[in-house]
């Protein structure tokens, strides 16, 4: 068995040497979008957003955003993350509880985060929308500000 494993390592290593990645750009999490109005550009927003993610989101959604089955939803290519920006910002502001995503029920409780600044929310959502295999437009501070102003959180 050990011999076979060793042969596998050699074989994979040989493949790595003889093949080239089809798309070198795919190795990078995001490509700067010159049309984005985010402060300092989308790349700066993503960098700042990662710090917010580590502090505020990682504990439940996990380092690779794969979530916790039955409890905390993944943030990978779901319509919540990639779709309507207002709905996404409102999840951060108001929290979420008991949601069906695809065929899966998630029973975890996400606390509301109204204490986060508009900039932090814009940055973290821009980071999430451009990481973990996601690719979507930036969310700007102005957008967060407008959504927050129109937001009426459900009575607790």
């Amino acid at each position, binding site marked *: 068995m050990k011999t*076979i494993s060793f*042969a*596998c390592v*050699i*074989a*994979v290593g*040989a*493949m790595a040497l*003889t093949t080239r990645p089809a798309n070198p750009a795919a190795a990078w999490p995001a490509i700067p979008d010159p049309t984005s109005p985010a402060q300092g550009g989308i790349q700066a927003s993503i960098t700042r957003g990662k710090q917010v993610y*580590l502090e505020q989101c*990682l*504990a*439940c959604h*996990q*380092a*690779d955003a*794969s*979530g*916790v*089955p*039955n*409890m*905390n939803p*993944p943030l990978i290519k779901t319509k919540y993350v990639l779709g309507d920006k207002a709905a996404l910002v409102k999840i951060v502001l108001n*929290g979420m*509880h*008991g949601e069906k995503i695809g*065929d*899966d*029920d998630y*029973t*975890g*409780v*996400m*606390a*509301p985060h109204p204490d986060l600044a508009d900039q932090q929310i814009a940055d973290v959502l821009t980071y999430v929308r451009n990481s973990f295999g996601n690719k979507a437009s930036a969310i700007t501070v102005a957008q967060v500000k407008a959504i927050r102003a129109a937001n009426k959180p459900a009575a*607790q």
Partner: protein
Amino acid sequence: MHINRSILKLLPYGIIVLCLAGLPAAAQLKLPAGFKATVVTTDMQRARHIAVAPNGVIFVKLERLKNGKGIYRLQDTNGDGKPDKITGFGNYVGTGMYLKGDYLYASSNTDVYRYRLDKDYNVLDPDKPERIVKGLLDRGEHNSKSIVLDNKGNLYVNIGAYSNACQLSDRQKGSPGQMPCPILDSAGGIWEFKADVPDQTYGDDHRYATGLRNVVGLDWNTATNTLFVMQHGRDQLSDLFPQYWDKKQSAELPAECMYELHKGSNCGYPYIFYDQIQHKQILSPEYGGDGKKGPAKQYQDPIMAFPGHLAPNGMLFYTGNQFPEKYKNGAFIAFHGSWNRAPEPQEGYYVVFVPFKNGKPAGNWEIFANNFAGGPDKMQPGSAEHRPCGLAQGPDGSIYVTDDQRNGGTIWKISYHK
């Protein structure tokens, strides 16, 4: 010597094909010397608890319907170790699965049903079970209803607290603990019912033990004639109270606790938790605790304390004769695997063993079956290949382990060969 270069280029691909052909589909479990795991099936996704009949027929409860069915009966009629007669029944999801005498007991997230079995452990009327318990709370969080029977015709059911720590707003920083915790009247404990009386529900006489946040793994210990349970301890000490716990401490605390219960046991949730490093009960921070202070009144102590967040989902006292002597009457515990240790590395995703003598743990716990996740890089709840959940003992003294991961679905049989 002349070697054709195109053959050289193809060589690594050829070796990979050979490797793939030689590797088993499921992650290889790591076991102590002399033990061997065989894969019974890889087709029981979201398998929770499991029961094995005296003739080797397997019953497994699923928490997601498979072809519209939530319970599967697996029978190996030709003795090749793989089930070849597979039938599904029960149109509800759930966790509990326990076999006693002529009846199979199964739980949804609100009810407990029982099915009459014939002498070959066929289900007599799979579409018409008897409803034994009805109307238990299901508010999503901690909604699974684990079940076990004693030898006197009583059924024990866990009703998990629909909360992390009974805060006014669940898991919200700064929200105070409710005093008294209103959850405890109908959840956060073990309820006891008659195993043969239909349609029982809440009532004063039925609460057996309280102050338990959520129990998934539990078993009746026939050596002590008492109920043993494994509590899932609270989450997020550092998230909610960074002034008292850093992320490293919060990954280890609080203990996942084993309790031996009696009628009237109170294990203290949500007012306290057990700190396995300070070896004492700690007042919960939502109730004025600071990480050091104990409660004014002591609650029942755990019989054993494990590291935090490992998520004990299955428990089995071993009464077989196949395994070596040290395993007799000891406890196996399936630790589903942590999520609330992030950003620290996750832990669990294994089955442990605790030796017992005279009804008490007789030595430290040890990892028995490991590598359910499929490697250290996959030890996260979303990316683990398998997550161990249910445990059962077969008639030959082998044990069975289920896997409730969404793309998992493996059932292993673990046997000992000298």
